[in-house]
């Protein structure tokens, strides 16, 4: 087993899940932001994940796939913006209210963000468990030479 490769795979996932948590935290922090440098309220952001390394999707039984499959973890290919419409709330006293007295609030749903946050935390924990397992295995392999 290649310890470094296993660690790199799990490490890439830890980085990706942490970035996802950062984005969720940013969404929550800006759940009520009505002014952005681009103008208008804050738009919800999402991390887009893609596998790293070549994927062999189809093969004949009994024949070795060439080149052999080597997954290298996960990577964040981009941060996308949620295109769904903004929330409209009637609040004529608000400084960003339009002529009809409505304010556009960010399209951030706090409940959705909390659920995503839990999913990201669980995924992070699973990858930490994989790192721990890799270390245990390597330690046991080192133990072979010991008297």
């Amino acid at each position, binding site marked *: *087993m*290649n310890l470094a*490769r*296993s660690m790199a*795979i*799990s490490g*890439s*996932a830890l980085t*990706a*899940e942490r970035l*996802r948590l950062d984005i969720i935290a940013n969404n929550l922090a800006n759940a009520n932001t009505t002014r952005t440098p681009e103008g208008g309220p804050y738009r919800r952001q999402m991390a887009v*994940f*893609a*596998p790293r*390394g070549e*994927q*062999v*999707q*189809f*093969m*004949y039984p*009994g*024949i*070795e*796939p*060439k080149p*052999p*499959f080597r*997954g*290298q*973890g*996960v990577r964040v290919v981009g941060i996308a913006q949620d295109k769904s419409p903004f929330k409209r709330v009637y609040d004529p006293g608000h400084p960003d209210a339009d002529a009809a007295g409505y304010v556009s609030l960010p399209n951030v749903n706090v409940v959705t963000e909390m659920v995503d946050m839990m*999913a*990201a935390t*669980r*995924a992070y924990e*699973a*990858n930490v*468990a*994989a790192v721990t*397992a*890799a270390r*245990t*295995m390597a330690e*046991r*392999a080192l*133990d*072979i*030479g010991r*008297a």
Partner: protein
Amino acid sequence: MIERMFSGDTQRVLENAMRASGLAHEVIAHNLANVDTPGYKRSEVLFQDKLAAALAAVQDGDDQLKGTRTNARHLPIGDIPLPGDVTGETVVRAETSLRADGNNVDLDAEMVKLSENTMLYQALAQLVKMKMTQLRSAISEGRR
């Protein structure tokens, strides 16, 4: 004689099994890394079934008929390797979908496979260690 000491059948099967188990760890880690990747399909390593088939072939003596492959795209006929030559093979499981986004990584199932594989690796390492102890005992003529 001396080369047989470290390349006996048991030794080679154990070595390949450890290698396959290490590869299996990599594959499980890759599945776990992509638990939230839309459209990702999980992979797994085949080793035990291949080894069982190779052992059965040796036992039944039906490893005589073999088709010769002159091209990599030929289908193998009766081409079952010897138990010592069986290696792990990665396959993609693309038949199922667990979620609406097409991903089929089951976090619980992967975690079970992870701990299962870790224990298997540790057991194999223990066996290799015991084999080494046997050798050492033979070298020292039974004296400690």
